[in-house]
């Protein structure tokens, strides 16, 4: 049993099956990747794991540390050490970077805010009083979101498309902090369709049509994904899958 287990999840949205018996076993302290083409159900899997609105009614189970969290709120999952980095982080008009990162910190731990900004390569003095709004680039918001996760020091973090909408320099900071999270024994689940991101993981789950079709070391999964999945015209069309193609 892993620190995070997804067990036989079936989820349908608007009559369309999105997850078809998804199962994942995520090991504590390791960096995993869920990889697959667009439409495979990867982001849906992240939403189910975090228990977001609209993704709570499904068949199957999600376990954290061996206990079902299926009926827990997002808050309770967060308090148990599970969190999510969004593909496109939310904007918060008027909310300062300091208040955002420090939302759950005690007053005596405010220095963690500056340390976290520093860790993601953002000069604390330049950012701490800015608002987490549209004045920040997508890359800056990604890094500030990561800083908030570093400050939270979670047990498990799901990172949905960590390279989405950011430049190379920002991506390097995010990759550097994957190492930091691993050093802290934080379990990381990367959700990605990028071979570059996939290569930063140790283990991979290959998703297609809402389920895992293969899993193993990144060294084995990555070449298959690059050579077979990326050029594949299957494109997660359910009718093809139903026909067994």
């Amino acid at each position, binding site marked *: 049993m892993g620190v995070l287990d997804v067990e036989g999840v079936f989820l349908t949205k608007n009559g369309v099956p999105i997850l078809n018996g998804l199962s994942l076993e995520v090991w504590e302290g390791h960096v995993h990747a869920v990889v697959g083409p667009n439409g495979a159900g990867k982001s849906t899997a992240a939403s189910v794991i975090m228990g977001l609105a609209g993704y709570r009614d499904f068949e199957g189970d999600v376990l954290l540390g061996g206990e079902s969290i299926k009926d827990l*709120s997002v*808050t309770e999952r*967060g308090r148990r050490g599970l969190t*999510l980095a*969004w593909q496109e982080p939310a*904007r918060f*008009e008027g*909310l300062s970077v300091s208040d955002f990162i420090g939302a*759950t910190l005690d007053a005596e731990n405010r220095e963690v805010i500056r340390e976290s900004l520093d860790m993601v390569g953002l000069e604390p003095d330049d950012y701490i009083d800015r608002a987490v709004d549209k004045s920040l680039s997508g890359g800056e918001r990604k890094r500030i979101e990561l800083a908030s996760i570093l400050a939270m020091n979670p047990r498990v973090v799901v990172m949905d498309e960590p390279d989405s909408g950011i430049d190379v320099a920002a991506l390097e900071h995010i990759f550097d902090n994957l190492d930091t999270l691993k050093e802290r024994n934080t379990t990381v689940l990367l959700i990605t369709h990028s071979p570059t991101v996939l290569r930063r993981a140790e283990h991979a789950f290959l998703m297609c049509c809402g389920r895992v079709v293969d899993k193993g070391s990144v060294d084995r999964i990555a070449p298959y994904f690059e050579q077979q999945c990326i050029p594949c015209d299957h494109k997660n069309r359910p009718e093809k899958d139903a026909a067994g193609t």
Partner: protein
Amino acid sequence: MPDLIEQLYASIGQNPHEIRDDESIARIEVHKNEVLGVHLVPGLEVDAEETEDGLDAAITVTRGTRIEKPVQVCFGMMPERGLQKIVLDIRIEDEASAAIIAHCTFPFAREITHTMDAEIRVGHGAEYAYFERHVHGPEGGVRIVPKTRVTVEQGGRFSTEFELIKGRVGTIDLELEATCKAHSVMDVKARIGGAGDDRINLNEIGRLIGEGARGALTSHIAVRDAARAEVLNTLTASAPFARGHVDCKEIVQDQAVAKAVPVVEVNHPKAHVTHEAAIGSVDTKQLETLMSRGLDEDAAAALIIQGMLS
């Protein structure tokens, strides 16, 4: 120092000595209809007359004067009941510059009416920034009726910000009309949080009548419980290269009701006005982001609203 002054400053969370002991800070302190204190700096003229229910004051910043530190103004009433009528005639003469920070404090109000009738003229190339913060008690027994008419002459800059986010609003009927001449700028903001059975009515009108005039009307309102808010923003541009923007955001919780009517009117082919209005509950993605860090839903919503009103 009179007790009343101590009480007024205490109600707004300020140490009176920080302001009163600094000779470089101009100040005016008024309790109901009584002027408790006035300190002026060079170039600032105040002609104040106590009236039966309040104060009639002419404030002038003389031509070319640049007042470095914001003028501190405190209008308040400590009793639970009463009427305070303030009439202001503010003139920022040509090329002058000043900022006023006004605290309006009614910490124990149960049945208080505070009206303000202000006429403001910002002269050629002059700058005037006015910030008004209201401190109300928890009972909501205040009726606030500020009416302001502003003329911004060529090249002038006018900004005003109204904040009422601590204590209960009660009822507010805010009206503002601003006329901007050539190459002048106006920036009008209101940030108000309402609860209980509070009533918030904003009617702001901006007229960009001069070439190159620019203006923005911004209203950020949060209402909960059974509070109601209605915002009418009207921005008219009728000169070449006049530019304007109306921004109204309202967050609604519980049984509260919010309404926004942005009116934009362009009377010149080279003028341009935009608007955005958003009314709704707290954004789900924002909520879930904070909840995924361990905040409960109420605390997350409060933090989001605090940000919007900041």
